[in-house]
């Protein structure tokens, strides 16, 4: 959580204060605008202007690979098509299932790991760094090397799993029923450390006197856990869920390299579907509408969630 900045006890070497003379150089106001303007300008150019253009395109039948075709204004037709398109609904369902299961696993595992790490045994710093490495890798490259690991013959995943219990021949990424678990597994491998670090920060922030007071009062460990630990870690967990939720909703790189959205459309996430519409079929107008819908969804849900988070923090 935020720590209030430590205010210094003494200012810089004591100087007799003269009458305040007008300061040289640019005024604060000028400096403020000078400093903020380039950032705002760049963000407007690369984020806002394209968003507005996206909205405009979503009302047309523009196709980026046929720019000379006469442009027709379609009104809301693209949005109507969107809502009645069962493939898009399927893809949103796939995305929702992916987000749900991956976050559930990461929260459970991440919290458990943080709990254990909080015991502060010898060498815990080193092992933390080891666990954290997967999170820092390029998701696309991770996707491609997990295809290798999941290969039914040459890959070690099947080898190791069958070592413990012989499931026979199975393919994680080739089987329509297993592919979702493959992407959930890889995502969990990559991002559990993320949740772990956040939970760890939360656990460490809990003041010890609370536990001591509870023990004095005769509360069992179990009860202490539920009445002290969980409520105080909850805001941290919720923050982790917010970040991971947004990231996994946008997920593209790792899954496209791991399964290409397949088999069939078993793992075709919203971003993958969008990419196919926009950059393979070149239905720019239609995909702009989808992009707007996706953005509004994530923005809206995130907004509500942040308000909820703030309320939890205040408790």
């Amino acid at each position: 959580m935020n720590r209030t900045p430590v205010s210094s006890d003494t200012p810089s070497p004591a100087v007799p204060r003269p009458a305040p003379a007008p300061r040289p150089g640019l005024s604060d106001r000028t400096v403020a605008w000078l400093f903020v303007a380039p950032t705002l300008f760049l963000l407007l150019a690369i984020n806002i202007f394209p968003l507005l253009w996206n909205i405009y395109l979503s009302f047309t039948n523009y196709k980026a690979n046929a720019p000379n075709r006469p442009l027709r204004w379609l009104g809301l037709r693209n949005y109507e098509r969107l809502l009645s398109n069962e493939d898009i609904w399927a893809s949103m369902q796939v995305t929702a299932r992916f987000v749900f299961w991956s976050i559930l696993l990461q929260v459970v595992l991440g919290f458990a790991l943080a709990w254990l790490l909080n015991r502060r045994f010898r060498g815990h710093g080193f092992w933390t760094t080891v666990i954290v490495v997967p999170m820092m890798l390029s998701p696309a490259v991770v996707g491609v090397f997990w295809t290798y690991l999941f290969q039914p013959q040459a890959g070690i995943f099947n080898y190791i799993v069958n070592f413990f219990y012989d499931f026979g021949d199975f393919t994680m990424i080739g089987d329509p029923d297993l592919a979702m678990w493959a992407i959930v597994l890889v995502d969990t491998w990559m991002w559990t450390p993320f949740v772990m670090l956040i939970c760890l920060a939360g656990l460490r922030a809990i003041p010890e006197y609370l536990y001591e007071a509870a023990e004095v009062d005769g509360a069992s460990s179990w009860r202490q856990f539920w009445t002290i630990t969980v409520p105080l870690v909850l805001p941290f967990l919720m923050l982790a869920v917010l970040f991971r939720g947004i990231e996994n909703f946008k997920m593209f790189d790792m899954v496209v390299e791991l399964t290409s959205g397949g088999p069939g459309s078993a793992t075709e996430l919203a971003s993958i579907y969008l990419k196919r519409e926009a950059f393979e079929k070149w239905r720019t107008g239609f995909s702009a509408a989808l992009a707007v819908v996706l953005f509004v969804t994530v923005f809206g849900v995130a907004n509500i969630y942040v308000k909820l988070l703030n309320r939890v923090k205040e408790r």
Partner: protein
Amino acid sequence: MRRTFLTSMALSMGLAAGVAQAQEKSLTLCWAAWDPANALTELSRDFTARTGIAMNFEFVPWTSFADRFLNELNSRGKLCDLMIGDSQWLGLAAENGHYVKLNDFFEKEGIDINDFLPATVYNYSTWPKGSPNYWALPAMGDALAWVYRKDWFARPELREAFRKEYGRELAPPRTWDELMEVAKFFTGREIDGKVRYGVAIYTERGSEGITMGVTSALYPWGFRYQDPEQPYRMEGFVNSPEAVEALEAYKALYECCTPPGHSDAYMVANLDAYKSGQVAMQMNWFAFFPGILKDEQVGEVSGFFVNPRQNEEASVLGGQGISVVSYSDKKDLALQYIKWFAQPEVQQKWWALGGYSAHRAVLEAPDFPESAPFAGDFLEAMSNVRDFWQEPEYAELLQAMQRRIHDYVVADKGTAKEALDKLIQDWTEIFEDAGKL
């Protein structure tokens, strides 16, 4: 400080690797990364020797080939001076001005397009189809065919067992029914201590794999894309009873006789499965056959057969033409390359190195069928090839088919008729959007 050191290191690395970006006479040719591309690199040394123009190549694996280079053309990129693009790109390339029209150039340089096999001219060069507007020079003839383990087919125990089970001799199948039988025969059979499987077929979802695979079944059953009398009318043709039967046969073949995990396989996965001895037969492009013969493990024991017939004879068309990209700054140099490539001696050398020349001087030479074990099959295939839609909307049409077919064959969704019905819906929508319906 650290940053300047690292930046200078980066810059020197960039310079060291920046050979391709040297501005003296050089051309960049873009194609797919596969055996024929290596052969072309070898062949092009002759061009460099004769003209002093250095050749650079940008080869991209097939699975990302269309994606990457269609994107390149759409962004009006200047990377490629020459492009050996897929035959199905002709429509969109011609209508959106990506390729340079070659008619005037052919006339000026005295290149007669009729020197090339008519089927290749029709399919790799003309848009609108069959009209005398040439957007590419036929560069690589190709079709889908099959490879099989001659040695296993020759084993007496296996021949005996097959004869007992099916009442005929074990031989390369000539119909799809026979193909099923042979595939079933080999699936699960232990040969030399390992369990083997019948076939490796195309099931790839991402680019075009499963469509190419499934059309190799659809065409022999008599599949038609549209009413010959009324363009873009697909009801009753795309979902005809023969089409349904063919699609079901392909799914049956996938389910009974392919190795485990073969659900997203294209050219390379099939090659791997075949070379490692997993399967008795594979479907693959003629382009790979020279390489298969040279392979250390299976070169000596491989035979070839043309796509089996069912109601008629048909093979899936592959192959590409070479075009000049209209956004290039070096169009005249690129045209020189085309002029050089069109010469009969160069075409002969192209075939000798492993590329499939489309030039009649090569293909109609009397000794051509003996020049390689698959040469005769190649000629036969090229005489009855059929291609996918070449319309400008080709990418969307292909994506729709990829989705519906993969959903049915691999992901078990719905029936064959339903898949084809949905496909007609998709395609109708696409043609309506394009103003054709």
